[in-house]
């Protein structure tokens, strides 16, 4: 295992440590300006104020409108009972919130959220937490395909098995899978980290630009331009710390996980013409 060669404040906080080096990286605001971390119309909620919604007889739109009304009233902890695998529940929440779903969600659950901490006691369908920007989403059972598509930030955790194309096009944040994932996980991944404690399906990390995938089990096959890299002490420490937050651990120890990164020969990393690129690849 390679020696630890980098430490910093973000590492101490258990946050990501990778250097953002993409060509299109731009800084839109100064992180010192605290007001930029809160949306102008965000509700001032109190986590100690708790309430419940019974979703059994409500459609998805009504549940989401009710969540917004309750946040407006200052409730910071909301429990949704009987979600019944309905689609698009808990989407577009741009607020601090403790949100609990007692049951399963259908497609597109918790998509486009920025800030809430969500706990789901059941299963989630396709495209859970798509385009999530910040916060945490923790699922106790299994998840469908396209889990965390285009994820931008936050922690997305499924303690069970996940379907195909997990983390497709993810641009940041962390996806943690307690079980196995299907084919094409990490397809066109651009940034962030994916941790798969079980086995990974074929074409893992296919066409990934950047980011890191850690696998605890067997890898059925790597995709184009995905390559194995050496684990270092920083990787192991980060994994142990992150997994501990969610009561998970790597089956063979964090240091023995397999690390997959982009070979960076496929996209935008050279000035080769397409015909020349064919020779390289």
């Amino acid at each position, binding site marked *: 295992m390679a020696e630890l060669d980098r430490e910093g404040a973000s590492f101490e906080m258990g946050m990501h440590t990778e250097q953002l080096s993409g060509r299109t990286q731009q800084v839109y605001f100064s992180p010192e300006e605290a007001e930029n971390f809160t949306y102008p119309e965000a509700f001032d909620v109190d986590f100690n104020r708790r309430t419940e919604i019974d979703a059994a007889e409500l459609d998805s739109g009504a549940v989401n409108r009710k969540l917004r009304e309750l946040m407006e009233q200052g409730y910071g902890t909301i429990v949704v009972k009987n979600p*019944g*695998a309905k689609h698009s529940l808990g989407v577009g929440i741009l607020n601090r919130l403790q949100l609990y779903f007692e049951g399963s969600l259908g497609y597109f659950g918790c998509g486009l959220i920025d800030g809430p901490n969500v706990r789901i006691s*059941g299963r989630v*369908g396709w495209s859970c937490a798509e385009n999530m920007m910040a916060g945490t989403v923790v699922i106790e059972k299994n998840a469908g395909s396209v889990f965390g598509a285009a994820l931008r930030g936050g922690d997305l955790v499924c303690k069970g098995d996940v*379907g195909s*194309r997990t983390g497709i096009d993810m641009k940041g944040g962390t996806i943690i899978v307690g079980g196995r994932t*299907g*084919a094409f996980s990490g397809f066109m991944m651009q940034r962030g980290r994916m941790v798969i404690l079980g086995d990974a*399906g074929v074409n893992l990390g296919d066409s990934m630009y950047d980011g890191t995938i850690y696998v605890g089990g067997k890898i059925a096959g790597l995709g184009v331009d995905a390559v194995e890299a050496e684990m270092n002490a920083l990787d192991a420490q980060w994994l142990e710390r992150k997994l501990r937050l969610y009561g998970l651990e790597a089956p063979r120890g964090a240091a023995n996980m397999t690390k997959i990164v982009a070979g960076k020969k496929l996209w935008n990393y050279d000035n080769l013409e397409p015909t020349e690129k064919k020779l390289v690849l």
Partner: protein
Amino acid sequence: MCGIAGLIHRGTNADIGSEMTAMLQSIKHRGPDSTGFALYGTGLQDQYVMRFKVAEQEDVKKGFRIHDEMKARKRAVDERLAELGVEVTSEEQATEYAYRYVFSFDGDLRRATDYVEDIEGVETISLGHALELVKDLGDATRVSTQYELGGFRGTHAIGHTRMATESDVDIRSAHPYWAYPFNDVAVVHNGQLTNYWGMRREMERRGHRFMSNCDSELIAVYLADAIDRGEELEGAMWRSIDELDGVFTYVVATGDRLGMAKDVMAAKPMVLYESDDFVALASEEVAIRAIFPEEIDTYDPYEGEVRVWQS
């Protein structure tokens, strides 16, 4: 997009008509154009059940002459069946244009169905010892009410809600597809086969007839052909993963089995619930929740996966 569903009771039978109606109604947003059911009853040992129609639903609205034509077509069916020595023991008129016959026959079943199909405007929807196939325009509740499917007892069923994309909105293009003229084989499918025409020509060279231009029918005929040649259903399904090209998730039912297969791209959804005595699967979990409101464990089958269950 389309929605597909299946269920099987192992070692018992139940009101599968109501169960499948509830499942399909909950995923009607995946396909509002037509709904189809393939229900497997408790089985007729020495008899066959045949469902056929004498017109399309839309035809009936077109004028007065169609009503006389439908009567004439029905008379022609009766005459041809009698001519072949078919002994009809039970006759029901499900709708103005659809009938259900139970009959005894020990002759060439293929010849009999071909002879009936030869009447203009007549289509055999299904034929078998256990299979009863019902499909029509509208959502699940409407079709189920129209054909009185509530209370239909059996062991297993598959169903489909169709969003018409590449063929007409009519009964002929609706799923499930019966593997004409094989007994009791039906398929529902979500996806698109890209080698449809090549494989269809291969099947036609072996003497199979196709009743539609829908790629889903190919899966039914492909599997029935394999079973007819002595292959096990599960083996044929594994082979289909390699030989069928495109994106697909399909559910197949035979007289006593239910199976599902997913292509290697896994681009079409399927959620599965399995217990010792019951299995339910559907494009979306809401369909399973429609018959299991309590919390249950479900999962997505993986790419290239095949599963088969026996009733």
